């Protein structure tokens, strides 16, 4: 039986692991390669690595760090942040990423999704959708780490991303992110019902039952950052909780 995945997320800025609240207020949480290795050893099913500065000067440093992580970590690694063209995707995959995640660039130029999927296969292509409630019962997609509305309905954008070749969607609720109050389950349900690819839930995990609820809502994977970085809960504790909810996890 296919297991649901528990995925620690490493937000990396200038080569350091950081954690923000509502996409702001960053604080230093250590070396990301060490963290990736530690989480893999603790039973993480996958590691998501998001480069949040994404400047040109950071790119070489990012590739070096991904190379180190790929050599030390024997679970899948999804890397994103600053992937503006297929060549960036190629560099990340050659550095050792298993999947490449992209958020802002495809909102500007949706054909990037096809280019990545054609070259590397849909299983390598993750489209990250940052969504915020629009006050009318829907959600808007945001670009640039949640700073700028993209003028697109998030559910429509999810459908279009998959039609263009996304093999997975990483769905972050901007409203919930960093609040530790739980994921936006309505957003997850709406997207999971709209697309035939795996969905990774993100934004708002504060307790193990939050991850279980996201998985019960239909997500194939639940991503969390602070809950793990702060040592509040271990991956095993989360998996025990998910198992209690009757959902299959890798033990």
């Amino acid at each position, binding site marked *: *039986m296919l297991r649901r995945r528990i995925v620690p997320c490493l937000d990396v800025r200038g080569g350091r692991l950081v954690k923000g609240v509502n996409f702001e207020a960053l604080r230093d949480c250590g070396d990301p390669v060490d963290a990736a290795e530690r989480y893999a050893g603790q039973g993480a099913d996958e590691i998501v690595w998001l480069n949040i500065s994404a400047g040109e000067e950071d790119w070489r440093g990012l590739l070096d760090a991904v*190379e180190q992580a790929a050599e030390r970590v*024997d679970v*899948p690694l999804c890397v994103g942040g600053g992937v503006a063209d297929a060549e960036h995707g190629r560099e990340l995959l050659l550095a050792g990423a298993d999947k490449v995640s992209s958020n802002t660039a495809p909102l500007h130029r949706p054909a990037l999704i096809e280019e990545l999927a054609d070259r590397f296969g849909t299983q390598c292509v993750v489209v990250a959708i940052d969504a915020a409630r629009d006050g009318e019962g829907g959600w808007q997609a945001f670009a640039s780490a949640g700073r700028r509305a993209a003028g697109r309905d998030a559910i429509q954008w999810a459908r279009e991303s998959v039609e263009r070749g996304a093999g997975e969607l990483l769905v972050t609720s901007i409203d919930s992110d960093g609040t530790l109050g739980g994921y936006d389950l309505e957003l997850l349900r709406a997207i999971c019902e709209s697309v035939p690819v*795996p969905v990774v839930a993100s934004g708002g995990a504060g307790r193990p039952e939050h991850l279980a609820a996201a998985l019960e809502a239909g997500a194939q994977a639940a991503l969390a950052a602070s809950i793990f970085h702060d040592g509040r809960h271990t991956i095993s504790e989360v998996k025990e909780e998910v198992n209690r909810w009757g959902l299959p996890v890798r033990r």
Partner: protein
Amino acid sequence: MSGPVTLIDYGAGNLRSLRAALERLGADVAVSDDAATVARSARIVLPGVGAAAPAMRALRALGLDAAIGEAVERGSSLLGVCLGMQLLFERSAEGGVDCLGLLEGRVERIGWARRLPHMGWNDVAACSGHPLAPAAGTVCYFAHSYRAVPADPAAVVADTELDGTRFASLVAAGLVAGTQFHPEKSGAVGRELLARWLEVPVAA
């Protein structure tokens, strides 16, 4: 420890993880895109990421299809991983392309799944007493939308269930073997499987 391992580089992307996984096991790994080198190798790993048709084009352009066939003919041990496993068969429906034909059967899209790609950790259950057969409780990492349909049921060493239907996830015939899952991404159980593959006696 066994002799050196040639990891075939045909532009298929993530070689680093496979290389690192083999090296952690003490293997002497040479990454090569050279047909003559591959043809002489006693242990060969064929990785693969992406789609079957461009992968076969890349292998043919480098003469690696013939080189792999030659090595297998000589009694070399070959392991295909993910798309690399699918390429071992006769034909793939992904792009409608003829493949290496080292195993009898074809590759088809997974038609029945509720969600594709089949992405994540799933059981790999032994179907035979083959030396590569997984131990009970083996769970490995998958990322694919196509699956192999071996012509000979005896080639299915292990299978995996997805949404109520089973498919071949570990195949072998003679010294040609393949995994649909990624052993290099499957933690300790993947490591153990690669270690056993490295111990397979070669004839070449």
